[in-house]
């Protein structure tokens, strides 16, 4: 069945299954990815069908997982690594930044290290500490890495396919609070480019740009704004490194106002980079400064406070109003 409606988590599972079926060099590895199927069940049933050599339960050591994945990639494999939660990637950060990102350049192009690192990220699920973070900027800042994040089941499927096929290391952030959201997937469609942004909703008065979990929030904000007679365009960035500034520029040249929304702290967040570049590109088109909505410069709060910390519908609409007031 080519077209089906399924949750984002299941689309990722289907994508991994397709990759394991079509490329014998693909190896899925991580904690609990085997019998358990991963704590979010993204790898559900894969070890049963592809065996313990292809779907590998690893020792509990993130640096070890990524470091051995690099070695496997040097041997010709395409490891797809699962980091269990965003806050647990940091033991592997050294391997990712000092080794994975630089190895191709260091070898003057002689080697490639096609490792995909899947990281469920973001908050909103009432989790304990270290389970709700959005560290995407820490990876986007590193040359040699690509950073992407899908917002829909279709993108989850296709972007993971493309990430696995890429000869570059890709950090693949999965919006964990959207795992259970359903959407249509056509497995026979011709997918768009991995690093191209998508206009998720057209509008004329203001552009909201977001990615991953915040795309849905922004679409809801645009719908609410429409009821008040404001036409808000929503751009789903999809790729954080590189960023498709051309699509964003075209949108801002049309709407003349931009609000960036992400869960990550605003300070030094991707919104800062977007604001700087769009200001440079669209200086004479802008009617208002680029505004940012995101997390605060405080550790991710306890679950009972996360609704206040995360950008929700109201905070996005507040920024929309402030921008339109210029």
């Amino acid at each position, binding site marked *: 069945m080519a077209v089906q409606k399924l949750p984002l988590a299941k689309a990722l599972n289907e994508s991994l299954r397709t990759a394991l079926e079509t490329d014998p060099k693909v*190896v899925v590895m991580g904690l609990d990815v085997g019998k358990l199927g991963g704590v979010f069940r993204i790898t559900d049933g894969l070890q049963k069908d592809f065996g313990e*050599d292809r779907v590998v339960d*690893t*020792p509990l*050591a993130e*640096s*070890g997982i*990524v*470091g*051995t*994945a*690099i*070695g*496997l*990639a*040097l*041997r*010709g*494999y395409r*490891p797809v690594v699962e980091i269990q939660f965003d806050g647990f990637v940091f*033991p592997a950060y*050294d*391997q990712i930044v*000092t*080794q994975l990102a*630089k*190895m*191709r*350049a*260091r*070898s*003057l*192009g*002689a*080697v*490639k290290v*096609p490792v995909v690192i899947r990281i469920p990220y973001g908050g909103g699920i009432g989790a304990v500490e270290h389970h709700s973070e959005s560290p995407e900027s820490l990876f986007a800042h590193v*040359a*040699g890495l*690509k950073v992407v994040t899908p917002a829909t089941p279709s993108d989850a499927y296709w972007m993971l396919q493309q990430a696995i096929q*890429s*000869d*570059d290391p890709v950090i693949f952030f999965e919006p964990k609070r959207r795992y259970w959201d359903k959407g249509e997937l056509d497995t026979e469609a011709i997918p768009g480019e991995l*690093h191209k942004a998508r206009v998720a909703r057209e509008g004329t008065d203001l552009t909201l740009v977001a990615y991953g979990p915040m795309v849905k929030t922004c679409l809801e904000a645009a719908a609410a704004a429409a009821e008040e007679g404001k036409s808000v365009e929503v751009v789903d960035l999809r790729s954080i*490194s*590189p*960023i*498709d*500034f051309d699509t964003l520029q075209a949108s801002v040249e049309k709407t003349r106002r931009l609000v960036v929304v992400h869960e990550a702290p605003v300070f030094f967040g991707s919104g800062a980079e977007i604001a700087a570049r769009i200001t440079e590109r669209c200086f004479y088109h802008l009617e208002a400064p680029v505004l940012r909505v995101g997390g605060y410069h405080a550790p991710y709060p306890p679950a009972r406070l996360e609704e206040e910390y995360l950008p929700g519908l109201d905070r996005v609409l507040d920024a929309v109003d402030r921008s339109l007031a210029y």
Partner: protein
Amino acid sequence: MTVESTAARKTTRRSSGTKRTASASPSTTKKTSTRAAAGATEPELVQLLTPEGERVQHPDYDIDLSAEELRGLYRDMVLTRRFDSEATSLQRQGELGLWASLLGQEAAQIGSGRALRDDDYVFPTYREHGVAWCRGVDPTNLLGMFRGVNNGGWDPNSNNFHLYTIVLGSQTLHATGYAMGIAKDGADSAVLAYFGDGASSQGDVNESFVFSAVYNAPVVFFCQNNQWAISEPIEKQTRVPLYQRARGFGFPGVRVDGNDVLACLAVTRSALERARRGEGPTLIEAFTYRMAAHTTSDDPTRYRRDAEREAWEAKDPILRLRAYLENEGHADAAFFEELEAESEALGKQVREVVRAMPVPEHMAMFDNVYADGHALVDEERAQFAAYQASFADGEAE
């Protein structure tokens, strides 16, 4: 300074050096008791050639080499030392920004390096110049990163010798992953992973022990314990002899005389064979000494005593094999003369190649950042090119 002259100088020191070993012990004992304890574990050290150049037997390891093979090992060590001393000189002359000398560790590197098969794979630190030599890597290629013209600069797959890794211990995980790949492929080659006593404290090294043990990966860990991690002596890294750590991870560990090329060869060969048979990893601790500074930027006089170094001079890896070759009549004067000439020619060639190494084109910094390209890199490359071109326009005017 030539290797042969170094050798001659050291020969004269050897007898007195032996005495100093004995007299050096009390001062070492004074420093810390742990250090003396490390000395007390010496019976566990696998040795096939004594510092005086006498062949001795070991119940578990033996090696039977022809005179030609023995001369080959000697040649490897002499040329490696000559290359190393040339690089040190080139740094002093400002031709290299930095050099990490392997002086004193020739036997550990040549012995282990010559144990490898062509289809085996090596993951080095940044000091494995002798292993690179064994793998057939053009020695001048090693100097690019120290001259500052690249950050690696050789194709690892040409000689199955991975790029130098500067972050300590990272490569042991790559080695383990590579070995896991070999096992998946059903191949019977093995991986040799190098690290040092300092890196033994790194999480990555310990994680590589865990992963390789769990997956029974065909990897041999070759730890050159050269006693010093820049200024920190081995007792700042461990309370037990390093090779004993392997046991806790579930695989064998062995300490070998790191200045005995025959023992290093025999022990590494045995461990690689074990890995090929599917019996998993081995940790080899080559007990040796960093005779030179950590790098040319380091000043060992601030933290260690001359007496310690002098004691190790008496255990020089090259001198002991030369003594053996001469005593057994395995090499004549002509061999040593020819080697001296070859060694000088190597020094000259290295000097010339390094001095002629081109500075990379400015635009090269944007190359190979990504395999599939990246819009930002493309944009910045174009901006930089335009910026550069703006000067050219100015000059033209």
